Every structure is written in structure tokens, then in C-alpha cells.
């Protein structure tokens, strides 16, 4: 039976923190955990987000394993800040989530009640009313966040939490709120687990999350698929945690009364940590059978060649959606979400009066088109530079089509007739000729630069 040993060769269990090197990566290492408590009844909620400052409010009862249920409601985060400032002295036990946590790119939300532990990984702006919230630290692995999600929601994770709680705090339940110290100590992966195993768990946890989302979006019943995937994931989690078979089975048995979707039958097939380093990828999940696949291909061809016959539109949408979700499920989540330093250099404007082949002075022209004001500097009959349109570069009049793109097309051998027709005649042949003449007299770089204000100065 495989066991994990510490440096002294002593058999370890995931909840016994070692004195030497810890054989487990713990939840507290990968997520910054905080408690949040916010009485939603005192806040003004909205049916839809209206600004970038709005976040989805999630009540504890809406936090289920792997997904949030219920109709989303939103609130402006500034309302939370105002409420906090107003009530700070009166309600010491409340703790609204910080702005940084709510708008963090990745977070795990854990409902406070532990029967069962319910964790959701979300990329949305989320404001939980009563939860523990874990934020992925900069540079941390997204795969480990998915592994944490899988462990926390699994039967073995539920069992481990209870074992550790009993050991550390002498109780087996935390109905009033998950124990922060036990959560931080929860093992997420054995440190010596192969990366391929972590990838498998991350992918399978992503599949489970996506299956719940697909079920909601496609209004389909994927319950059997969800149960099968969760059972497979349970085995993968055992392997990632390097649990002994006996320990894994005991943990699963200890939480049998819990309402979980990944409870295997009486003799579960568990993947246990072996010697192999050749870990196969996660098997794909298919929604479409062969006949539906053929129908989809036929409809795709019809769509390309003119249109979908009336009466087939519903089927076309359904099959296409299911195919899209199959592809999403087959795609492993990114390994890292790195912080980027991606500041592009500010474009230097090119003085319009330095353009060759333009009648000077170029004066601003005002027109009203369909009730909208349109201002531009004419560079010819068809080519203009309009403040605020396409960054102030040279464009074809009354369009958002850059001259630089069309010049690149011409350079690449596309004919003028072809270009004009591709844009539905909005660029007449005479306009293309004008572009060629202007390009012949100026450095091509000029068409990459703004000639007039980009619109936000």
C-alpha cells in the first residue's frame, strides 16, 4: 500500500503537520483566506450589472458545490463601502469582503456551513454574504486552485476536514462557520505528486464546473455525466493526495450521510498513487452522438453555402452549443494567471501637414449623419482622419476601416475589386485608387500613426 513518508521515513497522514518538510501543499499556501459577512438585506440589489464597479452578491444558500445557483443579483461595491463606513462602530462581527477580494481575477468561495463543505471557483466579481473567500496569490498556480476546489468538494476532502477538526479542536462539526485554522491546513496535493496528476485533477475539476455551467446554459440534464465525472475526480484526488487505500476508504465511509454527488458505491475504484509517471490525459466528455455530429457537419456546410433551412435553426443552435461546450470541457484550464507588465508605448502623432499628396491647409469639416455629428479632416475625397475614430488614423470616410489594413491587403495581392466587394461596396474602387496614390507618396508608417486626436485627450 503506497504511503507518503517524511524525511525520517515515518508514515504520514495529510492532517499530521510534520516537524520537518511538509509533504503536502496546504490550502493556506496557495490561497489567501478571509472570512466575509455582509447582511444583504440592508443593501440595494439590482437584476443586472450596470457598471464595472458592480459585483454579483451570493448568499450562503446559493453557494453549492462547484457552482452558484439561483438568479444572479448584483450590487455596486461602493454601496458596500458606504455601508461598512456607516455601520463600522455598530456591528463589529460583520466583515464585508474587500474590494481586492471581490474583484480578484480568481477566487474560491466557501459557504460557512460545513454539511457538506461547498466550494465554488469563480472568475466573476463576487461578493458573498457569508463565506470564507480564498484569493489566488500572485504567481500561484491556477491548477492548484482547481485542485483545492476538487479536494474541498470531494468526499475525501469532507472526511479530512472532519478528521483534522476533531484532532485540532476536539469537535466534528462547525455549523456556525468553517474553522479557518483547519481550512488553512487542508492538504491540496502531495508535494511529490507528478505534475501530470495535478494537471488531471485541475482538468477534471474544470470539467465538473463546466458541466454545471453547461447544464444551466443549455437547459439540459447532465446529472449522470456530473456524477460520473465527480466519481472519477474523487479517485484522481486520492492519487493527488497520495492517500493510502485504507485511509481513502475510511474517509469516504466517514461522510456517507453527506449529500454529495461523488459518493462511489460500496467498493469504489480509487486511483492510488503509484510509480507511474506516464499519466494519460483526462478522457473527453461527449454530448453529441455520431448521428448528431453528422447533422452538425451538414448544417455547418449549409450555413457556409447560403443558409440554414427554416425549421432547422433550433437544431443548428442546439448542436452548435453542445459542440462548443464539448470543446470547453476538452480544454484544460491555464496553468498560471501571471501578472503582466504590458504597457505599450504611447503612439507619437504624425503632423497632418507633413503628409504628402494632401491639399493644405486641411480644415476640420462638420457634417451631421443620421442625427450624429461627424467631424473629419479630409485627406482626399474618400480618405479622412476623424478625431476619435480608429485612434485618429487615416480611414475611409464614414467608415471605421483603416487605410493601413486595406494597403496591407493590396500589398498581399488582393485585388481592388475583391476588397471593394468584401466590404459590400462601402469602399468604392475610386477610394482604393486614392489610397494607393497617397501610399505611394508617403512612408507606410504614416498610416500606422494618429494624425488627429484619438478622442480621449
Amino acid at each position, binding site marked *: 500500500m503506497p504511503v507518503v513518508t517524511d524525511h525520517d521515513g515515518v508514515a504520514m497522514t495529510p492532517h499530521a503537520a510534520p516537524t520537518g518538510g511538509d509533504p503536502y501543499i496546504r490550502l493556506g499556501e496557495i490561497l489567501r483566506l478571509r472570512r466575509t459577512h455582509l447582511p444583504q438585506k440592508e443593501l440595494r440589489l439590482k437584476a443586472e450589472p450596470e457598471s464595472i464597479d458592480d459585483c454579483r452578491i451570493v448568499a450562503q444558500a446559493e453557494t453549492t458545490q462547484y457552482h452558484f445557483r439561483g438568479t444572479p443579483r448584483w450590487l455596486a461595491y461602493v454601496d458596500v463601502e458606504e455601508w461598512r463606513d456607516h455601520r463600522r462602530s455598530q456591528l463589529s462581527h460583520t466583515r464585508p469582503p474587500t474590494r481586492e477580494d471581490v474583484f480578484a481575477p480568481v477566487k474560491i468561495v466557501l459557504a460557512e456551513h460545513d454539511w457538506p463543505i461547498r466550494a465554488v471557483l469563480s472568475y466573476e466579481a463576487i461578493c458573498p454574504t457569508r463565506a470564507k473567500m480564498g484569493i489566488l496569490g500572485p504567481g500561484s498556480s491556477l491548477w492548484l486552485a482547481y485542485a483545492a476546489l476538487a479536494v474541498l468538494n470531494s468526499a475525501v476532502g469532507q472526511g479530512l476536514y472532519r478528521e483534522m477538526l476533531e484532532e485540532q479542536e476536539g469537535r466534528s462539526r462547525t455549523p456556525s462557520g468553517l474553522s479557518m485554522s483547519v481550512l488553512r491546513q487542508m492538504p491540496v496535493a502531495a508535494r511529490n505528486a507528478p505534475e501530470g496528476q495535478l494537471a488531471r485533477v485541475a482538468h477534471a475539476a474544470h470539467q465538473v464546473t463546466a458541466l454545471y455551467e453547461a447544464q444551466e446554459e443549455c437547459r439540459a440534464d447532465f446529472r449522470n455525466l456530473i456524477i460520473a465525472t465527480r466519481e472519477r475526480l474523487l479517485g484522481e484526488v486520492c492519487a493527488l493526495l497520495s492517500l493510502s487505500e485504507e485511509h481513502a476508504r475510511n474517509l469516504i465511509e466517514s461522510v456517507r450521510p453527506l449529500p454529495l454527488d461523488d459518493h462511489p458505491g460500496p467498493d469504489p475504484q480509487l486511483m492510488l498513487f503509484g510509480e507511474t509517471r506516464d499519466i494519460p490525459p483526462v478522457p473527453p466528455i461527449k454530448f453529441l452522438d455520431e448521428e448528431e455530429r453528422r447533422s452538425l457537419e451538414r448544417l455547418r456546410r449549409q450555413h457556409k453555402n447560403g443558409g440554414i433551412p427554416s425549421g432547422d435553426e433550433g437544431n443548428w443552435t442546439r448542436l452548435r452549443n453542445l459542440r462548443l461546450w464539448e470543446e470547453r470541457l476538452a480544454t484544460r484550464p491555464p496553468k498560471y494567471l501571471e501578472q503582466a507588465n504590458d504597457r505599450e508605448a504611447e503612439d507619437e502623432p504624425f503632423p497632418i501637414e507633413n503628409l504628402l499628396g494632401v491639399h493644405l491647409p486641411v480644415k476640420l469639416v462638420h457634417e451631421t449623419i*443620421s442625427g*450624429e455629428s461627424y467631424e473629419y479632416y479630409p485627406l482626399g475625397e474618400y480618405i479622412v482622419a476623424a478625431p476619435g*475614430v480608429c*485612434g485618429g488614423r487615416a480611414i475611409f470616410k464614414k*467608415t471605421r476601416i483603416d487605410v493601413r*489594413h486595406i494597403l496591407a491587403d493590396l500589398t498581399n495581392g488582393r485585388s481592388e475589386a475583391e476588397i471593394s466587394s468584401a466590404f459590400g461596396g462601402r469602399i468604392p474602387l475610386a477610394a482604393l485608387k486614392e489610397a494607393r496614390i497617397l501610399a505611394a507618396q508617403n512612408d507606410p508608417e504614416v498610416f500606422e500613426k494618429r494624425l488627429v486626436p484619438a478622442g480621449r485627450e
Partner: protein
Amino acid sequence: MIVLDEQLNSDSVAKDFGAWDGRIVTMPQLGWAGLSDESILRILRQHRGCTFVTINHRDFWNVVDGDARCAIICLSLPTRREDEASDWVHRLFRMAPFSTQRARSGHVIKITAHADGAPRVWYYRRRSERRLGPVPLP
């Protein structure tokens, strides 16, 4: 709904997008054809949950904040490679952080070509906040 900027408004590009995703419209169908960059944001806000795709990445990336009602995808892709646009966006929609409209709304996303052939994804919500990326496009 996917809204294509006017430079991507050729028949073949719209058909490529339409072959795998839902409703595809072009910017001139939603507003007047010569719209300013700022007017585009105003129009997008009126079409809740839409995703705007442009190859004029420099006019949006690092220039606008995200909006909770829509997503903005900036492709660093020359016109001559515009037939790759639908493939890039299609692959982006397979990625976990962007696979649902709710998750990608509020983000400004940029996809750039990369020497190893796998394009990279960058994104932010507000210009003042940190940017994330590069994440390889699946």
C-alpha cells in the same frame, strides 16, 4: 451576441464566426458606420452580454476600462490574417476564464501572435488594475 468591428465586416469573416457561435452582427448594423471609438462603447452597453471583436487593438487595449455589460476582445492581427480572427476568438471561448458570457463580461482582452505559434492572451478589468497574462491560447 458577437459584434464585429467594421474592419472585420467582410462576408467571409462573419460567416466564419457564424459557423460556430450564436448571433453575429457587425458594428454598422448596430449603429452608424463611422462611429467613434467612444460611441462604440456606448452602443455596446445597450446590448447586454455582447462581445465586441476588433483588430484595432491599440484603440481599445489600455485605452478603455472594461464594462460590466460586455466584453471587448482586441486582436493584434493584421487584416491579411483576418480569417484567423474567428479561430482565435473560438479558442479564447474554450478557456476557463472566458468560457461563459458572465465570466468574460467586464474584461478587456487582447490576443497577440507569438513566435512559437500559440497566440497569447492578456486581460484586465480596469486600466488602473493589474493586467494578467500572457496565457497561451489553447
